[in-house]
């Protein structure tokens, strides 16, 4: 079965979820990464509203009215799940116990600046837990389409929207490429099958460091 570009992006992001990690997946594309994580991989999913060990989403008629994830989906416990209050939940986040978070983005800059919570005058719902996830997870990945619906780059030399956190992103997974934030700048690390280097460069608003050797594909 050939995967869609979106599914290949999700699968590529899923491959960076390793055994033993505690991981928080943001609402939207990041949560969809889950379906590509092997079922027997020992991983603990964290949700901001007070769960370590988030289990599968349930249909409404199977749901526990008191058990949702931070996105409002009715989820289930697993063997080894724990529940806790909101202060303890963010203690996990801020004290560095999150090995990885995958987040969505409106904009992400070549230096790792992330804007994903506010569009002044148009979208101002409040940041929820995004700021602390972005600033404090040991590793921050962004999962996003390479361009917005109008085809404009979402990866920019500098964000134009208010930042969620500065210099927080380590890696960007898109439908076209995997890019890493390095001290030297934003590096193109992998390229989606069937996408050309020129396509990626044209769709990217930040300067890309392109290695000399051939790029791995995904």
């Amino acid at each position, binding site marked *: 079965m050939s995967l869609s570009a979106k599914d290949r992006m999700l699968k590529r992001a899923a491959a960076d979820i390793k055994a033993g990690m505690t991981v928080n997946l943001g609402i939207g594309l990041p949560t969809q990464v889950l379906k590509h994580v092997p079922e027997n991989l020992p991983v603990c999913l964290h949700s*901001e509203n007070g769960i370590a060990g988030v289990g599968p989403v349930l249909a409404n008629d199977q749901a526990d*009215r*008191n058990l949702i994830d931070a996105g409002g989906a009715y989820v289930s416990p697993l063997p080894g799940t724990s529940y806790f209050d*909101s202060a303890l939940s963010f203690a996990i986040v801020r004290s560095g116990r999150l090995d990885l978070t995958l987040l969505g983005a409106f904009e992400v800059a070549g230096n790792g600046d992330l804007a994903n919570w506010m569009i002044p005058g148009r979208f101002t*719902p*409040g*940041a929820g*837990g995004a700021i602390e996830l972005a600033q404090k997870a040991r590793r921050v990945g962004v999962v996003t389409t390479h361009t917005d619906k109008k085809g404009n780059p979402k990866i920019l030399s500098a964000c134009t929207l208010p930042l969620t956190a500065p210099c927080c992103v380590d890696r960007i997974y898109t439908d076209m490429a995997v890019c890493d934030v390095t001290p030297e700048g934003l590096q193109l690390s992998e390229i989606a099958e069937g996408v050309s280097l020129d396509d990626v460069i044209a769709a990217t608003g930040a300067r890309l460091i392109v290695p000399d050797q051939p790029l791995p594909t995904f």
Partner: protein
Amino acid sequence: MPMPDKSCSIEEAIAQIPDGSSIMLGGFGVPGTPFCLIRELVRQGQRDLTIIKNDANETGMGVDWLLDNGQVAKLITSHIGLNSNAVAMMNAGEIDVEFAPQGILAERIRVAGAGVMGFVTDIGIGTPMAEGKQKVMIDGKEGIVETALRADFALLHADRSDPFGNLCFTATARNFNPLMGMAATRTIAEAEAILPLGGITPDDVNLPGPFVDDVVALPELMEAYGVVER
């Protein structure tokens, strides 16, 4: 030595709240939201309230009843994206909304409950969140002073209570409830079940009785407590 009895009717409990009060409401989305206490607050109609809650529930539920009834002057929250009514009222200037990052909101409340004046954090440094806030240096690193967030009242939803107010929460209905119960001058809890003294194992208590002032038994759960059909 018996523990004091704090049982209270819902009418009496809510009647203690004057106009202009600051009120913390437990809950993250539906779970843990004290819908019955909120409904009584709507019935009694106290006005000019400052509401502190993680979110504004969804349109037509919980906090939205208070908004709809014009009882809310200010909302302190982390995210109101699921309540378009709240967003519209904010944009129209009908309510004042103060946002905090979710964990900072939780910690400001916990710190108030711990009888501490504030805490120092690097969360939000380099973003607009840090603007206008007092800074201090600790070990050569800059931090923001976040102040304790207290309230006049906390309204909580518990799974179980005893008459002394020992509270147990269940699953993700815990969320802000135990924190808020520590941070208010007067804490009112509704409980799905009130067990006799000794009915709750001492190790299982999530919020100890000394923090709780009034315990209200819920006769039945209204529809709002159920699974939300989307």
